[in-house]
């Protein structure tokens, strides 16, 4: 057991002293998260109003309570992305709606005491939301109009007070990640996977430099050699990724859920997986170049199908390919579903898959430690 700690301590020392690796595994992910989070913010709906820029013209014919009520309504629902403008020319405004330039034209006829809505059916979801609000107002006002007509004695119904329309301050979509939130999560998991290369390179160098052979002739239990390497690798990667996580949490305000420790625990299991893969491949491969090339190809494919470069939602078949081989796919799914929907099923599933696969790689590596002659000639 003491030798396990000695080996872990040595691994930690060596990795922490490697400034190049520390920079690559801390500053680069932080920079990438910042760049992706800022550069791609406009592509993420979570940062936009559900209503994109909407121009609504209104045309008032005559003067009366109805038009005053509409103006009050317009003031109330008007917000950054919805603009109401009064027009004195009905026909050009109708043309604008036809040409899809404006969303709507509202005609307020005080003489006939009716409201008419001109719309373009080519408008999308944003228009439907506005239409719903507008229809509420129109139905409500027409109804009050009818009441006044039937019972003029009680025409004292105040349009403005009687209109109980919704105050529309901001219409947001459901809880979805911003670009910074999204890339904060997926880049962390991606860079965890890049950590496979560290124990892998170290193992191959130990074989080449014959320090592994030197350890193998010593009286230590070979299990301790393997687990010492794992503990050291997991320790140093946890430090690297911990720096990234804390930066994203405190400086970039990335959403890691109501309790970030849950997210960090899942990422920790991914670190264990990455280090087990790295150590195992290090025991198997003799050529660093070949091993790193293989890992890089794997990571690029796993990242693409794991949603590291872009969200895969709505991409049909592509969305599901990663589930069969990409640790990023299931880890990202577990994290994002836990953070944004509070659903823990995928979260626990990801922990189980990460640790399960890690165990398989440990067993392969343990078997390799018994093949001393092959390691000697590596």
């Amino acid at each position, binding site marked *: 057991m*003491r*030798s396990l700690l*000695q080996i872990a301590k*040595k691994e930690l*020392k*060596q990795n922490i*002293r*490697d400034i190049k690796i520390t920079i690559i595994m801390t500053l680069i992910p932080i920079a990438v998260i910042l760049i992706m989070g800022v550069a791609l913010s406009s592509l993420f709906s979570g940062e936009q109003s559900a209503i994109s820029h909407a121009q609504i013209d209104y045309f008032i014919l005559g003067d009366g309570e109805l038009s005053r009520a509409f103006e009050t309504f317009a003031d109330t629902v008007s917000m950054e992305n919805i603009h109401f403008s009064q027009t004195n020319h009905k026909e050009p405004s109708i043309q604008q709606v036809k040409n899809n330039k404006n969303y709507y034209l509202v005609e307020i006829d005080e003489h006939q005491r009716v409201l008419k809505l001109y719309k373009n059916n080519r408008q999308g979801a944003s228009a439907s939301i506005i239409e719903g609000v507008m229809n509420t107002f129109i139905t409500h006002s027409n109804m009050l109009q009818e009441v006044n007509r039937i019972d003029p004695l009680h025409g004292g119904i105040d349009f403005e007070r009687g209109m109980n329309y919704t105050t529309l301050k901001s219409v947001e979509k459901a809880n979805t990640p911003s670009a910074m939130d999204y890339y904060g999560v997926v880049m962390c998991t991606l860079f965890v996977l890049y950590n496979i290369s560290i124990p892998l390179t170290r193992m191959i160098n130990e074989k080449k*430099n*014959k*320090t592994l*052979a*030197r*350890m*193998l*002739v*010593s*009286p*230590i239990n070979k299990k301790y050699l393997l687990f010492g390497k794992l503990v050291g690798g997991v320790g140093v990667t946890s430090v690297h990724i911990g720096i990234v996580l804390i930066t994203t949490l405190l400086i970039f305000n990335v959403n890691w859920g109501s309790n970030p420790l849950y997210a960090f625990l899942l990422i920790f299991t991914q670190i264990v997986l990455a280090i087990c893969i790295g150590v195992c491949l290090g025991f198997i491969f003799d050529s660093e170049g070949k091993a790193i090339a293989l890992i890089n190809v794997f990571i690029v494919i796993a990242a693409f199908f794991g949603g590291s470069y872009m969200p895969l939602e709505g991409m049909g078949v592509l969305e599901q390919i990663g589930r069969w081989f990409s640790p990023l796919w299931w880890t990202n799914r577990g994290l994002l579903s836990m953070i944004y929907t509070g659903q823990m099923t995928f979260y626990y599933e990801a922990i189980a898959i990460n640790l399960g696969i890690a165990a398989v790689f440990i067993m392969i590596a343990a078997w390799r430690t018994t093949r*001393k*002659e092959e390691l*000697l000639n590596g």
Partner: protein
Amino acid sequence: MSIVKVKQLVKKIGDTTAVDHVDLDIQAGEIYGLLGPNGAGKTTVINILCDMVKKDSGELWIFDKKIEKWKESIKKAVGVVPQHIAIYNDLSAIENIMFFASLYGLKGEQLKESSLETLRFVGLYDQQKAYPKTFSGGMKRRLNIACAIAHHPQLIIMDEPTVGIDPQSRSHILKSVKKLNDMGSTIIYTTHYMEEAEHICSRIGIIDHGKIIAEGTSQDLQSIVTDRKSILIQTEIGKEISLEGIKNIKGVLSVTFNDNRYAIECLKESQCFSDILTYFTQKNMIIKDIKMQTVSLESAFLSLTGRRLRD
């Protein structure tokens, strides 16, 4: 007490028999030299002795205990100096020694004290905090040795520990090996340098094609060669004659010239002695001294294996 005993050891690597029915018996306090050209099988023997390679057949005893399965207590008493410089460049000298010594069970103050003592022993005490990447080849070799001896092993196996270093470092290492032996360690030493074996080894085994073909002290091995004799002729300073001319004399096998001395080896049965003297006289050389010698270990090796040690 027998420290290492091997009976009929066999190891095949592919179609080649790397170790072919080798018998060894190394006694406590010996420096046993294993000599052989590249590919002779000496490193394979050493790898079997330190549990890096499994034998195909044969029996092995270490410290008089038969090895069926290696025990921790036996491994703790063995130190292995590999041929490669197997140290970490990103750990300081003392950290390297402390790490490897800790694998042999040393801990706490004992670990630190023993590591410092070892650094002093190999002459690297002042560089204890320096990183090996700043070391010369000789210093790295000394650190390589230090990592194997800090736990004070009873048996030290050294696989060509002086390859590729300067004469000063070699001399330091050879003195250290002698000192370790004086301090009670038994040493198995392989080398390419015949003079090293001749200088430090109490017994030498010559291995070729996986077989031990001769064994004994340096003198024993030299006396095995009975078909040749060696003549040493010292001449006057500043005058030389062609070595080719001497080589052309009937019966002469080889000739070297160093420091006004001609070392000539010739077949014992030949009548070359008078021919050589005549040749020197004809060339007006003044002979200051003549000695008849036994053949060198190098010649003995050549005679036994048919090839030079560095072939």
